[in-house]
């Protein structure tokens, strides 16, 4: 843990196309940014290149860095692309096919004639049974037969596996056999990464727990070598600061934590941006926001109430459920690269994406399908050059694909077709926005919409209008908010225990478990060197009505009556009714937070009045209109102007629709408000 006087922090966010670096003088608030192409074969190279570039710009030395923060999708990509380690699963005798069976369902949205069960990350041929059995509630029915573990180890060795997952029945209720098995396998298989399910996800339901354990095992060797490589490169550059990595829960953790449970990073991709958005909003005095992070292939949507980012355990990576604590957000396949196509006379947009290569036709890399970005180009929503002139848009190519793929087949004009594409995309995102707001009992109109990501600010006004939201905030650097988010993220970890048998709240039992969980949390914060005055803990109880299958997280109030009343109130808000049935306590959780020193925020000089740098033709309706185009660099605090307008900057373009007024905030954010006249 760095000292509170820390002066220089660097954040590195590695995306599919670019690696973004933000270097921050935390005392002065100065920020330097660098962008370098990502190197998928060895992301650590781009990491160091970016850091060096930023240090050069700032004219600082690597040894003066005292915080290195990093967001990586290495684990996520390994899972999605099936490129993780060759792994085995060791499980209880009689249950070899738990993974193969899954939950024995054809998914609700799938077609039973066409659906193909996805290949498991570990095939049945690499699942080995051992003799042992723990019963419901945790009593040991069959003690561990160590000879069977030795046989399993031999089988693993014969198949040359690089990682082993251990998931035994009911281990969440009693981990003795599982821990002993993992310990033996570590001894018997030196150099092989071994994961025990209780160290990843100590909760009921064997399929989901096995899967989480297997996914953790599959990414473990890759993450360990990646982190090791990064640390060596940092040492080579004389960096003394510890490396902290972003987790799915929206907090960072040291490399030791991440190497133990790398699956914790598998849903971390969009988390840093949410943290960054919260920080920008807080600087403007705004605590209730809905964030929309729109990239090339997907959009991530998250709601923050009272500045608190809530967690969920219902995440997925590709086809796989991964019930680890993650920022409660919804991800949909909708972005700038989403493909628009006409089938049976109907226009559909996404979830397929043209990706980075060849990407939209307008990028001039030979893209032949119509994408959302092409629709923006056709309508004039994007200026002719992007990335400060480094990239020219091919408007003719965009018009050609929209005409050939959409307008022609549907008998629409070019502008109608392009607006149709954007309209479908916006509505698709509104569906997801409603999931995080209306479905969770919140009225979106009480929130400020914060669009970011490269394509976010193009859609902010439209989404707000569809939702009835009257305020939109565009962060200072919307395209690289993830790097900024890393700079302001806290250290975070969760410690939870599922009761062997759910039942009515027993205060003594609960207090004893919370005490243990708090001790684990303290131990972790010691390890991460969090100063005592920077530690924060929340105790959370997961409850349900007797008979239900999913729980609601309620802050632990200390008395049964209060906790039960809070549960009933939450049930009423979420689902519209309460039951006269016993309330059960299922899981107890301690959320540990180590506050990081908050950097000084950059302050924008007062503006001299906004002046358009040029004008630009856009198609807001059937007739093209000429609107002013502003350069974000020339805007100062307090500057105001009205839509329709376009605001350009290095990393994103903002479309201000008619009826919206823009006010530049002291922290550089644009606050867009809807005028009453419209």
């Amino acid at each position, binding site marked *: 843990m760095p000292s509170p006087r820390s002066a220089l922090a660097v954040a590195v966010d590695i995306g599919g196309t670019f690696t973004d670096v933000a270097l921050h003088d935390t005392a002065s608030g100065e920020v330097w940014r660098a962008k370098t192409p990502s190197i998928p074969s060895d992301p650590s190279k781009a990491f160091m290149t970016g850091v060096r570039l930023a240090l050069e710009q700032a004219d600082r030395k690597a040894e003066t860095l005292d915080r290195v923060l990093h967001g990586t999708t290495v684990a996520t990509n390994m899972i999605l692309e099936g490129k993780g380690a060759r792994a085995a699963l060791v499980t209880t005798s*009689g249950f070899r096919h738990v993974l193969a069976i899954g939950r024995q*369902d054809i998914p609700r949205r799938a077609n*039973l004639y066409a659906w193909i069960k996805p290949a498991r990350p570990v095939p049945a041929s690499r699942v080995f049974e051992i003799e042992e059995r723990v019963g419901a509630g945790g009593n040991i029915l069959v003690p561990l037969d160590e000879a069977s573990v030795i046989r399993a180890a031999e089988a693993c060795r014969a198949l040359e596996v690089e990682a082993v997952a251990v998931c035994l029945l009911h281990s969440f209720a009693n981990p003795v056999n599982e821990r002993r098995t993992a310990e033996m396998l570590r001894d018997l298989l030196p150099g092989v990464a071994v994961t025990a399910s209780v160290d990843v996800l100590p909760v009921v339901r064997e399929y989901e727990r096995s899967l989480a354990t297997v996914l953790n095992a599959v990414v473990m060797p890759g993450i360990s070598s990646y982190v090791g490589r990064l640390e060596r490169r940092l040492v080579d550059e004389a960096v003394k600061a510890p490396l902290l990595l972003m987790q799915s829960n929206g907090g960072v953790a040291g490399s030791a934590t991440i190497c133990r449970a790398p699956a914790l990073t598998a849903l971390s991709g969009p988390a840093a941006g949410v943290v960054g958005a919260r920080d920008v909003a807080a600087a403007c005095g705004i605590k209730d926001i809905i964030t929309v992070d729109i990239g090339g292939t997907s959009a991530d949507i998250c709601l923050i109430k009272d500045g608190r980012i809530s967690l969920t355990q219902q995440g997925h990576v590709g086809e796989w459920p991964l019930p680890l604590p993650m920022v409660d957000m919804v991800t949909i396949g909708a972005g700038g690269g989403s493909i628009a196509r006409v089938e049976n006379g*109907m226009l559909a*947009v996404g979830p397929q994406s043209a990706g980075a290569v060849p990407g939209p036709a307008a990028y001039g890399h030979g893209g032949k399908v119509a994408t959302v970005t092409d629709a923006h180009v056709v309508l004039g929503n994007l200026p002719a050059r992007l990335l400060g002139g480094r990239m020219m848009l091919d408007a003719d190519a965009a018009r050609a694909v929209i005409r050939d793929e959409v307008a022609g087949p549907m008998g629409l004009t070019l502008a109608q077709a392009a607006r149709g594409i954007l309209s479908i995309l916006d509505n*698709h995102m509104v569906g997801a926005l409603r999931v995080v707001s209306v479905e969770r009992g919140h009225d979106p109109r009480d929130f400020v919409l914060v669009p970011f990501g490269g394509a976010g600010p193009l859609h902010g006004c439209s989404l707000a209008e569809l939702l009835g939201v009257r305020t939109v905030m565009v962060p200072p650097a919307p395209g690289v908010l993830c790097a900024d988010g890393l700079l302001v993220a806290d250290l975070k970890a969760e410690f939870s225990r599922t009761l062997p048998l759910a039942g009515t709240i027993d205060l003594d039992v609960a207090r004893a478990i919370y005490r243990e969980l708090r001790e684990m949390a303290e131990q972790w914060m010691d390890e991460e060197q969090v100063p005592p005055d920077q530690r924060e803990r929340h105790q959370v109880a997961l409850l349900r009505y007797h008979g239900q299958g999913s729980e609601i997280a309620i802050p632990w109030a200390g008395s049964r009556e209060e906790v039960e009343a809070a549960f009933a109130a939450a049930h009423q808000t979420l689902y519209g009714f309460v039951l006269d049935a016993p309330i059960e306590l299922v899981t107890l959780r301690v959320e540990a937070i180590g506050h990081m020193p908050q950097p000084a925020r950059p302050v924008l000089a007062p503006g001299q009045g906004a002046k358009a740098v040029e004008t630009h033709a856009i198609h807001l309706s059937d007739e093209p209109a000429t609107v002013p185009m502003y350069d974000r660099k020339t805007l100062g605090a307090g500057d105001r102007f009205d839509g329709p307008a376009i605001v350009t900057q290095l990393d994103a373009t903002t479309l201000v629709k008619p009826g919206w007024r823009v006010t530049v905030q002291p922290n550089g954010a644009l606050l867009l408000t809807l005028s009453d006249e419209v």
Partner: protein
Amino acid sequence: MLRSTEDEAARSDGTQAVCDPVTVEIIRGAIRAVQAEMEALLERTAISAFIREKKDFYTGLFDADGIMAVGSNIPVFGDMTGPIIREFPLETMREGDLYWYNDCYGSRGAVSHSNDQVLLAPVFHQGRRCAFVMCWAHFSDIGGIRAGSISPDATDIFQEGIIVPPTKLIDAGSTNEAALAIFHRNSRFPAQSLGDMRALMAANALGVRRVQEIVARFGADKVADALRQLLARTRDLVRTKLAETFTYGTHRFTDAIDSDGHGHGPFKIRFALTREKAGHEDRFIFDASATDDQSVGPVNFLMNPGIPGMALGLYYLGGDPTQVCNAGGPQALDEVRLREGSLLWPRFPAALGMRGLTMMRVLAGLNGLINVAGGGAPAAHSAYVITLMRGTFRDAAGRQQPFLLSDGIGVGYGARPTADGIDAVYFVAQENYPVEFLEVGYPVRLKRYGIVQDSGGAGRYRGGCGIVREYEILAEEAILAVRIDSVDNPPWGMAGGMSGGSGAVRLNPGCKDERRVAPLSDGTRLKRGDVLRIETGGGGGHGHPFDRPAEAVLEDVRGGFVSLDAARRLYGVAICGETVDETTTTVLRSDRPLTRAFHRKEYVDALT
């Protein structure tokens, strides 16, 4: 005949298209979101494991006249709103109404066993009826002959629990609490019944609210037109594909269920599809009237005439996510002929509780009908298996407590012309009870839960494998019912693929008191310490087994899906240790058995 078809004809002259294609797509997405939200609410709040863990529930949205516009991806929906509209004319409906039924005969098979409770509400906007929202769920006990309400022993529907005719449960906001009280009083597990009904009502209310928002946003005319377009789109697509598959003339296919559990069977299900010219149009006539007579036992499937079209529609929609499963499927067929008194249209009050096995065989038969006409439907699947245990156990305090365990067990699905059949699944959206959940909540302990080796029909594409589930009984005592079909008539394979494995139930396997339990039976007594092993059947294979790549066979052997012996005998693949013995395999495969069109225990030209 299908009400949906008649209504479509009656309206087709009137309305102009007012909803552009972009808006149709947006409305479709919004309705999908409503469904997802209703389903999530049900799943999170329902009390019985049958709904919230197994997830036996579905939702749908209908137009202002009650025609299904967006359903779920299962082919078991018939005309759901008709039964309500017949009792409560459309013009009498008011905002805040909620209707309810589970009456199979009263709904002409819209609901096909009494456990399924259907809730339907009209959606009004500014006084105009714009849509209907439905959700239904399987209630675990509604009275009847035994706990769980469905039993192979039942011989009439009165033994299968309380019957709720089409009823107005909420009249303009005022709930008929007496009806609910009577219903819950008839359940052996009233707390589950009450909790599930609250969840179902909350989900329906949510759906109504959300659809109202959609109508408010787009306008009633646009929404109506969008729904009409969604219907037309599905109907046109299905008719086009039907014409591609079926030449003029009559195509026939016969499948069979083994038994009704009362000593009768097999029962043949006979399908014919005729395509004929009628003026400029074609007519498609589906005829199942040659099906055998109804059964004494509860395997009758009171098939709503909409079902065949819904299933064919779902097959033809394939995996295309932009397509919607709705009444367009049934509307694609011009006529559906059934015979009263047959297994698919039994006379009141024949028992229906175990209709699931017949329904699954109907789906396999429809696959066969497509395939004999030259289409590319999967080979046959097994019918999903259900077991019921009812009895008593001692709780932690030593008190005797009643319990009911209805455990659904997956089977193998049929191989396809380009892909293996699905291993170990139950049906669309229905999940298992995890071992750890089962053992915490019920007096059983599982000894095994895995794949049944060699149960998938051999073929170039292998049929899916079934599941073995072995329970140790911890209850003091329990009465067991099981439902397995396709034992005598296993799921057929085709194009050289072989039939799938049969299921089996054994009590205390390997012990001296070992015995087989009849595959469709009730009344087997279980006592503490007994071991019950259930093996479910697999799906049929597709293509000649000798054409399956040897490496794929090896991987199946190493994963426990195929035995060494079957690899050699059926696939012609010799495996030595962990590798394929190429030389021997070449020799084995040079002696290639002749095949015929279908396979059920042996190769045949046609199944009859």
